[in-house]
């Protein structure tokens, strides 16, 4: 028993920074993961990745202005991410280029500016910190930010749920009945940016996408209904964060990659053993139904 306690719970009971890391991850899991489910269902899984890259120059600019300040880097990241998301999402609806192409253009420009800022700076920005985050160094300020973003995200998602779902499944119908299509899409993109910025406090700009997309893709192997899909995805995210933190603690690995790797393993497990997974395709039952 004691061994199990030491293995699974002791780090969180005994160390405050592990508790903070866990709380931060819980906030991310219930906020970023539902957003990720919609990203996946709208075939925009890679959009999160592109926007995550676009955040970099904003965060770097924030750092140059105010040093390692949570507020400045968050604001910078939000502004850079929102500009790219708005340009990509807005231009796709009024020009010939589709959203993925527009996004590629503007995230690359943004990334170039970011790398330029980081490399021409005489002060040595800890690029690794920006790219890979520091979930073990979350202070109270950061936790409040994560919790606020989670609250805002869930409220906004609940508000725009119906038009968002309709835009996913039958955009033509939404267009005929309402002008909400474009605003709802832009609000959704804003939520993606917001959650990526939240994620990069803990996991870094590049790893933040992981907690959005991986639980969503894993959950797809367990459910065919939107509501249960959202629930399963959040549960997978919660479990992955907890297990990832433990893995990082016991093996002395960096935390961000450990969490994302754990989520990846959960995806692989679901891929094989989920209700819609590969194994059930291979083992075909000998008898089939009459109708």
């Amino acid at each position, binding site marked *: 028993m004691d061994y199990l306690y030491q293995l699974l719970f002791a780090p969180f009971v005994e160390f405050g920074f592990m508790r903070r890391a866990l709380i931060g991850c819980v906030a991310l899991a219930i906020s970023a993961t539902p957003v990720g489910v919609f990203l996946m*269902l709208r075939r925009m899984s890679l959009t999160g990745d592109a926007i995550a890259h676009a955040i970099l120059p904003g965060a770097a600019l924030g750092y140059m202005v105010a040093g390692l300040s949570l507020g400045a880097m968050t604001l910078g990241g939000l502004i850079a991410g929102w500009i790219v998301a708005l340009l990509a999402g807005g231009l796709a609806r009024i020009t010939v280029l589709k959203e993925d192409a527009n996004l590629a253009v503007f995230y690359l420009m943004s990334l170039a500016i970011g790398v330029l800022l980081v490399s021409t700076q005489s002060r040595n920005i800890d690029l690794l910190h920006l790219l890979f985050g520091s979930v073990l160094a979350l202070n109270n300020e950061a936790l409040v930010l994560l919790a606020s973003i989670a609250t805002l995200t869930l409220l906004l998602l609940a508000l725009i749920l119906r038009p968002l779902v309709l835009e996913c*499944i*039958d955009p033509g119908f939404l267009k005929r*009945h309402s002008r909400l299509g474009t605003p709802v899409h832009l609000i959704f993109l804003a939520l993606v940016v917001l959650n990526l910025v939240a994620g990069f406090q803990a996991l870094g700009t590049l790893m933040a996408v992981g907690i959005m997309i991986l639980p969503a893709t894993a959950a797809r192997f367990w459910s065919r209904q939107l509501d249960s899909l959202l629930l399963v995805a959040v549960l997978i995210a919660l479990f992955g964060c907890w297990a990832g933190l433990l893995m990082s603690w016991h093996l002395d690995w960096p935390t961000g990659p450990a969490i994302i790797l754990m989520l990846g393993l959960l995806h692989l497990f679901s891929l094989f053993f989920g209700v819609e997974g590969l194994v059930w395709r291979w083992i075909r039952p000998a008898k089939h139904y009459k109708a």
Partner: protein
Amino acid sequence: MTRSLIQFDNLTLGYDRHPAVHHLNGEIQPGSLWALVGPNGAGKSTLLKGLMGELRPLSGRIVWPQGRSRVAYLPQRSGLNLDFPLRVTDFISFGLWSSTGAFRHLSAECKARIGDALVQVGMQGFEQRPLDSLSGGQLQRVLFARLLVEKADLLLLDEPFAAVDEATTQDLLALIHQWQAQGKTLLVVLHDLYQVRNHFPQALLLARDKVAMGATSEVLTPDNLMKARRMQAPFDPLAPLCEADGSAHVHREAR
């Protein structure tokens, strides 16, 4: 005499100044049941888009003497993203958009309307089924159920029976007659002339230009059908400007 619901006033609709519907005149009476017939590329879908307000006329206009009606539209290609995991009832509930809007909850009355619509299209028992598990014919029935809950006055159906089997077609045709009996106006794009003759009292035969419009038996004559078949379908990029009846429009003539 009743006032007409829609008047086509020298209406020309098209793309890039090339007409797809050319100088159409005519009127649609409220409560009438129309078949829209003609070869591919004759402008049938374009006319429906014009009625939906999705396409601005190149010249002429569509007049709504009684004010614009509430229109429900079934497109030729549904454009549904069936990967999205949604139940049949949730999908049909979007038909209630005009009463629930984006944010209001579904009242008990709304849910009853959805259940009722499923019964009417013969899909009771499918409420909780995911959309992607339906066959083509079942999906078409579900789309009709969504039209049912929309409670529109004018229904525009674009080839509703393409790739649908005989039994489903009969069921859906019965719904169309029921809608007409309720006083709704219907414009239905069709290719099966036997169906048109048997079920649709009025027909508009289009081949970019109007070939004939009126009682079905007078419209679908061998003569008229031959005329429609002779239409040159693809746009001619070198077509001269159309100066028909001295109007000032600048679209290109197709021939």
